[in-house]
């Protein structure tokens, strides 16, 4: 394994220290817990926004700490959900008197630990609600939508809930926004080459020389099927056919799109993917309000990407339009 690091047992702490040095005017490490980071600037009275999850997916989750975005994050070991105490500390850091919403990918480990964290917060008289994000259509069918795992769709749900909080919506209103945003978010990924676990040097899956994994999860969990690598045109066609099925129930034709790289996939490839995505959406009569092409939700240097479609409605659109920025993401409307 060729990773730039010091030692396995300081991996996460070294990373967090380097992140906080880079962003020290904006973020800090919590005094309550070494695996919790928070945004320094606070507004009293707004709903607090917590996110978090295992390490190894950088820039998620701490990359979204920022203006009109996330207030605090709880960080776990590599690919492991944060502990209940870390969640509790993050909830405390985010609390600004109006309750807290925790947004994280819908994985057993995260749900278990955030659930316990919320119980602990309850002892301290802080109301916190969990909102596991479930966007990966490869992981469960439409009837079991809420059981899906969370991948890059996190970004849009987080952005909109955080905007609602920034605008002063109540805890319940923010939570409803989150449910709506989550139910309107659909992602599908493919894995092309494995990533390496920096702790033990192991690749996270195996694929033959010309083979890809269709519907893979962001931890390298196997997906729907293995298939040969085909052209971007064909591959994206196949992915979009699956994703567009999910959009049938919505009257709205306005979307947000995210083409997310999983680590080693180049921006060149991601833009080529986006060319195919945008052509297909145009043909299908959809209007794309905003497109994010980046590697935000990664799995070490895994190669592959996911496509996320998020169906807007009037309210979500207005929330999405709010200016927001963090170390890895910003949104600003262009004056035209």
């Amino acid at each position: 394994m060729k990773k730039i690091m010091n030692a396995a047992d300081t991996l996460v702490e070294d990373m967090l220290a380097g992140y906080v040095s880079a962003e020290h005017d904006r973020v800090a490490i919590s005094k309550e817990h070494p695996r919790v980071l928070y945004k320094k600037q606070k507004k009293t009275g707004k709903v607090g926004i917590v996110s978090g999850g295992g390490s190894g997916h950088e820039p998620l989750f701490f990359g979204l700490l920022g203006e009109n975005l996330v207030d605090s994050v709880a960080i776990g070991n590599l690919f492991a959900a944060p502990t209940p105490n870390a969640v509790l500390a993050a909830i405390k850091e985010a609390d600004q008197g109006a309750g807290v919403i925790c947004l994280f990918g819908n994985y057993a480990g995260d749900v278990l630990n955030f659930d316990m964290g919320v119980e602990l917060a309850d002892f301290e008289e802080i109301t916190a609600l969990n909102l596991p994000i479930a966007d990966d259509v490869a992981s469960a069918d439409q009837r079991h939508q809420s059981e899906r795992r969370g991948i890059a769709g996190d970004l849009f749900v987080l952005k909109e809930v955080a905007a609602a909080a920034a605008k002063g919506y109540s805890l319940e209103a923010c939570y409803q926004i989150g449910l709506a945003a989550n139910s309107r978010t659909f992602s599908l990924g493919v894995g092309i080459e494995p990533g390496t676990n920096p702790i033990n040097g192991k690749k996270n899956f195996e694929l033959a020389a010309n083979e890809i994994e269709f519907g893979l999860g962001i931890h390298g969990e196997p997906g729907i099927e293995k298939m040969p690598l085909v052209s971007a045109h064909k591959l994206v066609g196949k992915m979009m056919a699956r994703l567009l099925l999910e959009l049938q129930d919505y009257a709205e034709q306005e979307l947000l799109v995210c083409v997310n790289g999983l680590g080693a996939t180049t921006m060149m490839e991601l833009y080529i993917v986006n060319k195919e995505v945008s052509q297909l959406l145009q043909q299908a009569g959809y209007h794309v309000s905003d497109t994010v092409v980046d590697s935000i939700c990664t799995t070490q240097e895994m190669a592959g990407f996911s496509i996320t479609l998020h169906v807007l409605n009037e309210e979500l659109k207005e929330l999405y339009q709010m200016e927001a920025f963090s170390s890895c993401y910003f949104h600003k409307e262009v004056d035209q």
Partner: protein
Amino acid sequence: MKTLTVQEAHGMLKKIANEWINHEEQLGEIDRKIGDGDHGIGMANGARAILQNVTETDEKNLANLFKQAGMAMMESMGGASGVIFSALFLGVAKAAKKQEVLTVEVLASGMENAVKEIKQRGKAAVGDKTMLDALVPASEALSADHSRDFVSALAIAREKAAEGVEQTKRYPAKHGRSKFLGERAIGFQDAGATSVALMCQAMYDYVKEEEK
């Protein structure tokens, strides 16, 4: 052997921890097949935390020993197994309240607590391809045991746990990271169940050796 002192129970905990550490590689390989490959790292982390943080400050406080073990795992591991395996030891801690020595009965009722807590938290049942597939039969074997002798009770428990691991190969996964695989998980054993079986094996080995 009918009772274990706090010191002996501590010895058993260390044995379990070392068993997990020795199988870090193997547990990782199993998880890599249908999960994210970190189960070995996680269990070894938790085990090292047990070795470091569990102390017998109070020779009479059996509950505290298991509570320390549970909290050590909860604070060091994270992930699904952090909550679940800490619930296991916390369940035993609950049963050990006000006890000065560990008996098969206390252990059995602790395991029952744990099963209940884990089912409630994780919403899984036997047959869902989780650690419950090993824990539930092991726990039932302990509860059903009439010998009240650690060696014979744990001999059956460890057998049942190992059988449970074998069973998991036959199931599609319904919980944890591999649940998304559905039928594709069939043929592969569950990582968490394997850790339970290792734990039962370590407990058996410990009492067997102590008896000599």
